[in-house]
């Protein structure tokens, strides 16, 4: 098999898939559809194959040797989810769903998540009057005031049960403006990553495939 499936042929296939998917930039077309369907099908299979090889198969082969027969129970519980496709007994599928949701909801709500929350709170605290070596530091003070006031403004913006009126209105508007500036910065800071991706793809096309680089 390896004799036929050479790296060069592989590069051709990958380049074909790449160009067909890029064609969506022109408009949706039959070539895009072919690549899209191939990609979706292959990657969907990959998810199942890796789960089978990494989890289910090892668990089943180790049952007789390690005596972990109890593992059949959670596997059967997992299989109950397939009842979801059979309408009259679809409710049976709620058993694994309930199990997963319980576990995951608890992960969302655990003391472990509270620690980063409290830690973030401590880092929002800064002295409004900053001193460096015993003397007043104006720039740092202004920056600190800006920092703390933005955190507070943003928090107030997210008050849902307090009507945005009076001082709250000003604070919330200030928070919202800060959110826009902050998110604008995030946007600008992302451009670099996106260009990197295109560089990576162009390097593949011009270098690995056409050998021009």
């Amino acid at each position, binding site marked *: 098999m390896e004799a036929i499936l050479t790296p060069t042929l592989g590069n051709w296939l990958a380049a074909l898939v790449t160009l067909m998917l890029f064609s969506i*930039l*022109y408009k949706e077309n039959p070539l895009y559809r072919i690549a899209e369907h191939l990609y979706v099908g292959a990657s969907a299979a*990959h998810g199942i194959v*890796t*789960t089978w090889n*990494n*989890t289910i198969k*090892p668990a089943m082969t*180790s049952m007789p040797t390690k005596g972990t027969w109890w593992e059949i129970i959670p596997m059967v519980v997992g299989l109950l989810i397939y009842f979801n496709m059979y309408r009259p007994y679809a409710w049976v599928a709620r058993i694994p769903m309930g199990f997963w949701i319980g576990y995951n909801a608890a*992960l969302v709500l655990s003391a*472990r*998540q509270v*620690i*980063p929350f409290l*830690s*973030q709170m401590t*880092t929002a605290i800064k002295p409004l009057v900053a001193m460096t070596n015993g003397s007043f530091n104006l720039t740092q003070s202004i920056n600190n005031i800006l920092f703390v006031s933005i955190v507070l403004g943003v928090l107030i913006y997210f008050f849902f049960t307090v009507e945005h009126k009076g001082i709250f209105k000003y604070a919330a508007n200030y928070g919202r403006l800060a959110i826009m500036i902050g998110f604008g*910065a*995030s946007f600008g*800071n*992302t*451009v*670099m*990553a996106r*260009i*990197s*991706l*295109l*560089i*990576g793809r*162009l*390097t593949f096309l*011009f270098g690995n495939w056409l050998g*021009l*680089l």
Partner: protein
Amino acid sequence: MPWYKRLMGIDRRILYIIMVVGITVPMFSPLGLPVPEDVVAQAAYDYISNLPAGSNVLYSYDLSASGMTELKPTSDVFIDLSFQKGHNVYLMALWAEGNNFSSLWADPIAEKHGAVYGENYINLGFMVSFSAFLEQSRSDLHAALNGGIDKMGDKLSDFPMMKDVTKAADFDAVFSFNTGDPGPTAWIQQWNATEGIAILSACTSVSTPTMVNYYQSGLLKGNVGGLAGSAWSEFLHGTKGSATGGMDSQSLGHVIIILFLILGNIGYFASRAAGDVK
């Protein structure tokens, strides 16, 4: 049609062509602009280079192919650095795709240093359920690693470098090359919050603000953010890799996007002045 209407209605496909050309040209003839300094990447570099020889450093490839351009240069630099400093290098992946890259990127460097598998470095493979792994490894690392096997399926207990490493706390630092979750957040929540293990990260520039935030909160010891961070770590390491070269395409790409932004706004304000839009 008035000029401003034409300016507002440029076909997006023309914009796309301009972008491809602008980014491709420097790939063939570099402009040679200087690399800007990056203090957070510097912190990561300093942290790893200050770990004494014999430290156990876990490099986790929590990434998909999309992170290749930005993360491979960093991986090259840090794996090389760790071998130079005589660390024990542990490789693993929280992402299935990362499992390929851990070998693809690190093995050539290990070979260059003449490192012995199982003594100087080892590949622990891919963890299907990251949350289960991170949890279980706190008490029993070997069991958590796919039931005690390495990437190739060999028994961990046969390797000398796994003898004294039996729980998460035995690692001195974890370095996550990541393109999303599970990544540093998971490591911090599970290993840093509970075991106090130092976590470092190399991320794409999308996640950089979040990671810098973590760094400032002390949750991360350092972060190599995006191509700029990679280029700076190449500079610190004294190598000129693909990150340094890619920075030129970056500069041009940024300028083009800003030009689009300005063009769009000129068109918008002109038509507003003409009373066409409110």
